[in-house]
């Protein structure tokens, strides 16, 4: 036995020399090592100690094996997942990661792939409540995409954020794997040597796991002048979550004088947060604002309230409230409500400057319950509106509004399924239309014509149809036949009159409970032709797609049918392939018409991307228009305008979007929209737009963000109405990007719906995407300058080569 052990021992040193590393194993290196075996060790001469994800360096490292105590003396440096901490001396209990380092400085590298934004379970989206007007949102978009509107890409894909922050402290206490507590600390995201701004706090807690920092009695110093004091602030290293106390916002507007908004953010849970803010208005007094947001796997919601106890310049109490909730109930069902209320008509115009807010006239108040599966869709709503009356003195026609009908309720059931080669479609709807008897006005399309009626009642519609889509790669033919049945049961007084603005009655009549049945037949057909072409060195497939669409609907007298939700859509590229030119359910046009159109596309052969698409079309009528909204003049010509559209995405970073419509009878242009955008790289965009619609609008729209060199960017937007010969919206601003901070100043003039123009001045200082101080024009710039990119988001690599940035 003796020799075998020797043999085996002899070969031992060459093979395994402790190569495999077990978890919890500690590796110590140095120029010299003194070891009391099993107890203490002392490595000297740029010593280092590595354990799991933690590396410690220093001149001398003493390590007590028994209680895993570590003592580093001289140039101590500890590197762990989140960052690096350096100082003269370090004491650390390795196993529990409890330790202390005096006069230490830290550097946090924050390579972090953010959560996918859309639908993320928690509110991992940047919230910009700092903007006083931000509280009120567009009604259409849901919670996640709405919050991203200040991030121009908006792609719900993964959002990779790279950031680095650093600072120092009189002492850093390590309190567990990811927690560090710093006393009298300084924090900044500027690179070493550039001390433009610091957050100084008596206590700063850093959490590597959630990448958030919390500071107590903190002071923000910008170019060593203190600009903000806050007792408590929490912020994310990566600007991934909303900041704690958002920096106060200040600006001035012509309507309310100087403004100071001081929001306080309460981060209740990963999927729930609340913001309370006080907003001091120079000429009005103190306004209180609150917003509560929540989101779960199957639900999301947002509630806002703004309360101005006594408005100094009007003397009354003014408030705004919004409650919005959407809930998935499972197996196809979902429900929700969206209710907004404001105390007086001029609330938005006087207390806000963002045109998505100042242009609001009808505030939705309603709820819905929906079901959807592959075949059936049910949509039940209860909906009414608070309509803001405008008393703006500029033009009388806008002085009195028309009031949309209330639908209490409206139940819609639609079904669509393939039965063999056929496609069957069913549309049924029951609605009960109601309206306050004092609100009887309906503005008609023709200017200064108003319809007055108190009619209310119920409407039932059923429209089954069947089509036979015969599709082949080279073309398709789709005959369709349907029967459209509608019945009305009206209550109370059903007569109507049409008055001009100055009160002259031009027409009268009465609506009657009646029903209407008419067949609808249509034939849609199209062919696809291709050919290969080459431009410069790219090979394209050019397509030629003629399309022919015939509709036949007999005439039914509908003059006694009330107008609850119908309007005649103006002819455009969107509507030339429609059965019924009227939207809503109260009017079905008589039709014997043929629409011809040809589209040609240039498709990039390698990527399948559509570089250019041009369409020209016209509709030919074989019957005059006999069905109309009361007071509207009916079409008599036998052919429609020629409608054209051209969109192009050129390789030279230009994109074009134009539409032109020409009336053949009067040989006049009825619509001309030209939109061009030049966007060679993020941060450099120019939009040129001219929009003309006969007798409705004629505007010029220029906007641009242009780099002016070494970090400066010019911002501008000019929207001038030629028809009304007055500016609609003007915006001028400058933006400076100093790498770890950005500053923006924007002057804006906007005409408002219910009061005359409002001027606003924004200043914003954004510290490394950390806390944005000053009112936040980002959401405004995103709307004002399509393609705008906040300079904080432009990665500095773009200077060398254009980054793959949409």
């Amino acid at each position: 036995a003796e020799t075998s052990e020797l043999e085996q021992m002899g070969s031992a040193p060459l093979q395994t020399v402790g190569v495999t590393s077990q978890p919890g194993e500690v590796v110590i290196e140095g120029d010299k090592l003194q070891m009391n075996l099993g107890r203490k060790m002392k490595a000297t001469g740029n010593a280092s100690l590595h354990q799991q994800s933690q590396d410690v360096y220093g001149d001398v490292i003493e390590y007590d094996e028994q209680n895993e105590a570590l003592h580093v003396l001289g140039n101590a440096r500890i590197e762990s997942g989140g960052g690096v901490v350096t100082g003269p001396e370090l004491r650390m209990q390795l196993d529990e990661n409890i330790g202390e380092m005096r006069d230490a400085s830290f550097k946090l590298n924050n390579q972090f792939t953010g959560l996918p934004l859309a639908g993320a379970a928690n509110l991992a989206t940047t919230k910009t409540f700092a903007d006083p007007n931000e509280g009120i949102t567009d009604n259409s978009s849901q919670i996640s995409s709405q919050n991203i509107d200040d991030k121009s890409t908006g792609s719900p894909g993964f959002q990779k954020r790279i950031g680095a922050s650093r600072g120092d402290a009189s002492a850093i206490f390590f309190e567990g794997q990811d927690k560090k507590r710093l006393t009298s600390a300084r924090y900044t995201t500027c690179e070493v040597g550039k001390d433009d701004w610091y957050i100084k706090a008596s206590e700063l807690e850093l959490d590597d796991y959630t990448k958030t920092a919390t500071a107590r009695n903190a002071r923000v110093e910008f170019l060593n002048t203190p600009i903000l004091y806050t007792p408590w602030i929490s912020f994310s290293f990566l600007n991934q979550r909303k900041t704690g106390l958002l920096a106060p916002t200040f600006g001035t507007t012509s309507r309310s004088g100087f403004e100071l908004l001081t929001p306080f953010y309460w981060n209740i849970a990963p999927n729930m947060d609340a913001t309370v803010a006080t907003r001091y208005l120079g000429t009005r007094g103190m306004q209180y604002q609150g917003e509560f947001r929540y989101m779960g796997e199957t639900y999301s919601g947002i509630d806002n309230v703004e309360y101005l106890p006594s408005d100094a310049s009007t003397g009354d109490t003014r408030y705004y409230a919004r409650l919005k909730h959407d809930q998935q109930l499972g197996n196809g069902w979902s429900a929700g409500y969206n209710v907004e209320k404001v105390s007086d008509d001029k609330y938005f115009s006087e207390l806000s400057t963002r045109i998505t807010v100042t242009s609001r006239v009808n505030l939705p108040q309603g709820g819905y319950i929906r079901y959807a599966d592959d075949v059936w869709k049910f949509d039940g709503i209860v909906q009414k509106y608070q309509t803001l009356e405008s008393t703006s003195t500029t033009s009388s026609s806008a002085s009195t509004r028309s009031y949309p009908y209330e639908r209490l309720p409206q139940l819609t059931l639609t079904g669509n399924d393939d039965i063999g080669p056929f496609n069957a479609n069913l549309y049924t709807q029951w609605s009960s239309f109601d309206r306050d008897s004092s609100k009887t006005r309906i503005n008609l399309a023709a200017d200064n014509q108003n319809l007055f009626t108190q009619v209310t009642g119920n409407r039932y519609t059923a429209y089954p149809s069947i089509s036979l889509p015969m599709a082949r790669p080279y073309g398709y033919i789709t005959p369709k036949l349907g029967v459209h049945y509608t019945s009305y049961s009206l209550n109370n007084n059903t007569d109507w009159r049409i008055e001009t603005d100055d009160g002259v009655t031009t027409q009268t009549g009465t609506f009657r409970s009646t029903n209407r049945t008419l067949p609808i037949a249509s034939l849609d057909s199209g062919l696809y032709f291709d050919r290969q072409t080459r431009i410069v060195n790219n090979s394209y497939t050019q397509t030629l797609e003629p399309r022919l669409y015939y509709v036949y609907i007999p005439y039914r007298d509908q003059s006694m049918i009330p107008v609850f939700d119908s309007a005649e859509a103006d002819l455009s590229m969107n509507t030339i392939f429609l059965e019924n030119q009227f939207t809503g359910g109260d009017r079905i046009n008589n039709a014997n018409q043929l629409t011809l159109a040809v589209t040609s596309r240039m498709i990039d052969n390698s990527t399948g991307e559509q570089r250019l698409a041009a369409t020209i079309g016209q509709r030919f009528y074989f019957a005059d228009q006999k069905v109309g909204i009361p007071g509207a003049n009916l079409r008599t010509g036998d052919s429609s305008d020629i409608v054209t559209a051209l969109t192009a995405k050129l390789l030279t970073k230009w994109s074009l979007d134009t539409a032109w419509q020409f009336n053949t009878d009067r040989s006049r242009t009825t619509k001309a929209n030209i939109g061009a955008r030049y966007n060679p790289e993020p941060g450099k965009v120019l939009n040129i737009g001219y929009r003309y619609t006969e007798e409705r609008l004629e505007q010029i729209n220029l906007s641009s963000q242009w780099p002016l060199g070494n970090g400066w960017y010019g911002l501008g937007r000019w929207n001038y109405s030629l028809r009304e010969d007055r500016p609609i919206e003007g915006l001028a601003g400058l933006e400076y990007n100093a790498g770890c901070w950005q500053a923006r100043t924007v002057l804006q003039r906007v005409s408002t719906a219910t009061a005359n123009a409002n001027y606003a001045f924004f200043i914003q200082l954004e510290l490394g995407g950390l806390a944005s101080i000053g009112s936040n024009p980002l959401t405004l710039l995103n709307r004002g300058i399509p393609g705008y990119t906040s300079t904080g988001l432009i990665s500095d690599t773009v200077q060398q080569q254009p980054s793959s940035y949409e």
Partner: protein
Amino acid sequence: EKADKDKPINLEADAVTVNDAKKTSIYTGNVILTQGTLIIRGDKLVVREDKEGFQHSTTYGNPQTPSTFKQKMEGKNEYMEGSGQRIEYDGRMDKVQLYTKAWVKKGDDIVHGDYIMYDANAEYAEVIGGGSQAATPATPTGRVRAVIQPKKKPAGTDGATAN
């Protein structure tokens, strides 16, 4: 183990030359020295006896097969082993010194260095790095490198006994 010192020394080698005047004997060729639980191996071993009768040995290895030693720890069933191009054993002081590309392993812990001094009585070791020319696969920089396994395993391992 302390008891080793009183055990007889058993030596095997291909050849031996003895020089009584200087009280030294030189063993060459697969030399194996055993004394109780202590085992030393190498290509060449020089044993010298000092005035007080203590034995001092110097073992030489070669880059392919360095000389090695192995000894049972006092009061534990763990072994202490080590290897180096040259191992000097001071019988009186019960001190082992390993030179060039040396390593010493105690239980699961191991330390690499260019010079390792191990005092068995005090259970104290001192290791010095050698710079790049002393690089070995385990320590490419040639500096001292110790790999310590976590001691705080659940009860039952002797390593946890308070010293």
